């Protein structure tokens, strides 16, 4: 009898019950500022999915669908006309109209400290055509532009609230999303409540949403198992079985837009002068020495997908002709011989100091050794590793990219000679020309052809040895109904409810 009495006492005295329609979502880290213009973090985008609607959204098939906008039309390659949804109001009761859209887009472009600028800097100006129509005039043609408006650059903020708050807008954001801001305790919680004036109010079944940053994956899992949260936006693949085997929980996996790869330094400073950096055949041998499926099996519980390209298999632009390379140690050895590389070929591999990437690095080390590579691993804290990669102080560096809806976002910055994230300093005029051309073309089939050529060339040059395309692995209480997974991994709250 003792234990039940104690349990009842503790439960009665110390714990209360959560609101019936309050959804508690665990995040892998605390988001940064909640201002769509200034925000940077991925988890921040998850909170924005409840707070701030965008002009457009994406669906499960990565198609662009209307949200605050009703439709768009390219009247010519640099003129985009957007029709807005009527009857939309912000959380402060102000009307969302063309003037508000113009204000927000210009704020994203020109506000000091804006992180949206580089996403939409092709924009020249925004014109108000009528209260529900805006014309966006671009400096040059840019087919990825509309896809930028499916993320934070497409979020529209209340001009009145933004003007009043200035740089402090993120402390109490006012948008036109399904939930409005209630409070934020840094590193503890972000609380939102249902906005009755939401344009699609019928799709919102929850009263409150609470985002709880819980960085430790095993503690996120424990919270889910104990019923202290209803949803965890990220479950480690190694914890997936624990969720699957629990009848009160549910595991939802879906395709992701990103990748994990090993960036090779080809021309970024003196550290590029290595056999791996100097000869594409050595890089091909390195890739052939790896059994990507085995790495995924060991480190990621077999959940991820091996790839040899930077585009997600779920993307309509995925190049089917470039299939993941199978391990072939004999061919790898032959390539090294052909390249005249002295064995063993030294490779200094930097890996971010987190358990899964370190483990993946160790398996790469063991596999590559069989083909004649001597991989030395340096585990580095992520911020330091990024700074070093930027300065060219690396030979090979394991990097993850969260991915973008448009293929341009996964390729241009990394592979164009003028790309902002081209740490490898890869430069191939043919690839540059194809990437530039793909920005000018609107037709999906034509763009697919261009990106196909890019991916094919990259699989020979190998400035990045792609390892896998991850999955979004979301754990939730079996009470959560109506959850719709989308490859960007964001938790959309439309249609989500808690069963009694």
């Amino acid at each position, binding site marked *: 009898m003792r234990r039940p009495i104690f349990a009842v006492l503790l439960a009665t005295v110390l714990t209360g019950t959560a609101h019936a329609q309050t959804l508690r979502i665990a995040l892998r880290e605390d988001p940064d500022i909640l201002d769509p213009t200034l925000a940077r973090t991925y988890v921040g985008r998850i909170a924005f999915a409840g707070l701030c609607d965008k002009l457009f959204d994406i669906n499960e098939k990565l198609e662009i669908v209307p949200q605050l906008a009703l439709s768009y039309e390219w009247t010519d390659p640099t003129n985009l006309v957007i029709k807005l949804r009527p009857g939309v109001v912000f959380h402060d009761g102000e009307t969302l109209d063309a003037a508000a859209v113009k204000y927000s887009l210009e704020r994203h472009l020109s506000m000091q400290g804006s992180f949206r600028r580089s996403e939409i800097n092709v924009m020249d100006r925004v014109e108000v055509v009528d209260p529900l129509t805006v014309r966006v005039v671009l400096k040059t043609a840019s087919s990825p532009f509309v896809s930028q408006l499916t993320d934070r650059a497409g979020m529209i903020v209340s001009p009145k609230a933004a003007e009043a708050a200035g740089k402090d807008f993120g402390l109490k954001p006012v948008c036109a999303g399904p939930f409005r801001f209630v409070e934020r305790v840094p590193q503890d919680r972000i609380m939102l409540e249902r906005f009755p004036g939401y344009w699609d109010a019928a799709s919102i079944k929850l009263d409150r949403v609470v985002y709880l940053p819980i960085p430790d994956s095993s503690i996120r899992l*424990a919270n889910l198992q104990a019923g202290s949260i209803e949803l965890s936006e990220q479950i480690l693949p190694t914890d997936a079985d624990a969720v699957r085997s629990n009848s009160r929980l549910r595991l939802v996996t879906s395709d992701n837009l990103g990748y994990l790869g090993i960036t090779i330094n080809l021309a970024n400073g003196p550290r590029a002068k290595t056999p791996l950096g100097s000869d594409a055949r050595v890089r091909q041998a390195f890739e052939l020495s790896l059994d990507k499926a085995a790495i995924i099996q060991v480190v990621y519980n077999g959940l991820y997908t091996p790839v040899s390209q930077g585009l997600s298999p779920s993307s309509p632009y995925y190049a089917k002709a470039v299939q993941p390379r199978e391990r072939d140690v004999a061919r790898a050895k032959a390539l090294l011989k052909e390249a005249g590389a002295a064995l063993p070929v030294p490779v200094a591999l930097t890996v971010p100091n987190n358990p899964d990437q370190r483990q993946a690095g160790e398996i790469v080390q063991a596999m590559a050794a069989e083909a004649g590579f001597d991989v030395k691993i340096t585990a580095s804290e992520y911020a330091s590793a990024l700074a070093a990669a930027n300065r060219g102080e690396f030979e090979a560096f394991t990097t993850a990219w969260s991915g973008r809806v448009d293929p341009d976002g996964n390729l241009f910055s990394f592979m164009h000679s003028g790309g902002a994230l081209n740490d490898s300093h890869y430069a191939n005029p043919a690839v540059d020309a194809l990437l530039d051309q793909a920005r000018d073309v609107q037709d999906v089939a034509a763009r697919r052809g261009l990106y196909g050529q890019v991916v094919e060339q990259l699989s020979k040059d190998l400035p990045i040895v792609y390892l896998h395309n991850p999955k979004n692995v979301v754990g939730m209480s079996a009470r959560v109904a109506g959850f719709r997974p989308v490859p960007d991994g964001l938790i959309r709250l439309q249609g989500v409810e808690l069963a009694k």
Partner: protein
Amino acid sequence: MRSHLGGRLLQVLPTVLLVSLLVFALQQLMPGDPAVVLAGEERGDPAVLAQIRSELWLDRSLPVQYFHWIGNLLRGDLGFSWRIRQPVASLVLTKLPVTLQLAAMAFGVALLIGVPAGILSAVKRNTAWDYAANLIGLAGLSTPNFWLGIMLILLVSVKLGWLPPSGYVPLTEDWRQSLATTVMPAFVLGNAIAAILMRHTRSAMLTALDQDFVRTARAKGLSEWVVVLRHAFRNALVPVVTLGALELGTLLSGAVLTEQVFSIPGFGKLVVDAVFNRDYPVVQGVVLVTACLYILLNLLADVLYVVINPRLRDA
């Protein structure tokens, strides 16, 4: 005594200044460029990096940056968090009650377990009580906090469902929920300190129990517990208070691992996140406030010595 305390107070300002200089200098040695971290996936755009550096004064010389910070500090402005753009002072004020509550509860646990166990162990020297207390003490000392925390979560929260596994609710919002969320982390933290307190109390009590005044007290016919508690324990308290002040100071500086495991938004979690995100103003602010708390605690310990041992009043 008064002059002694006055002297200690005079040392506060140079100590705080020295700490500020050390914090500022040491974090410059941290690898990684804050602008690159803050720029996130825009890190490749030199314009973005230049803009961040200019906005945060990172493009000025180190002395200029330091005196800018100190100048603001003297006006009561601790700066703002680069990451979430909240004023550091408000962040510190939000976290301070959390850390104080957790520290107080943990210290309470430590005192309740450690001191009686230490006394019992000394009084019942070389008996089963003594061995049991030593064994518990050794276990407390050798159990890593993060492991004990995870085990408790698995047992108490996941298996038995008695307490929430993590998170924090302020006392002012709901005291029951607040206790529910802090009782496990307080136990984990208190357990380790209890072990240290037990060992020190035992050793100080053993020394005190061998003193002449204890023998005299017994000869006067006082009961054994009066001898132990009123005479021996009071004399054994000075080293225990010193240790207690140091341990409490450590608790106030934030229990990094325990806060991380239980998702308690206190000083430890704040400063670790700030270090990883190169959020320098937050690191500087929290470390300075912690240093001030440490100094205050040491002053408090000085006062307590005198209260406990009147002979020190003339010292």
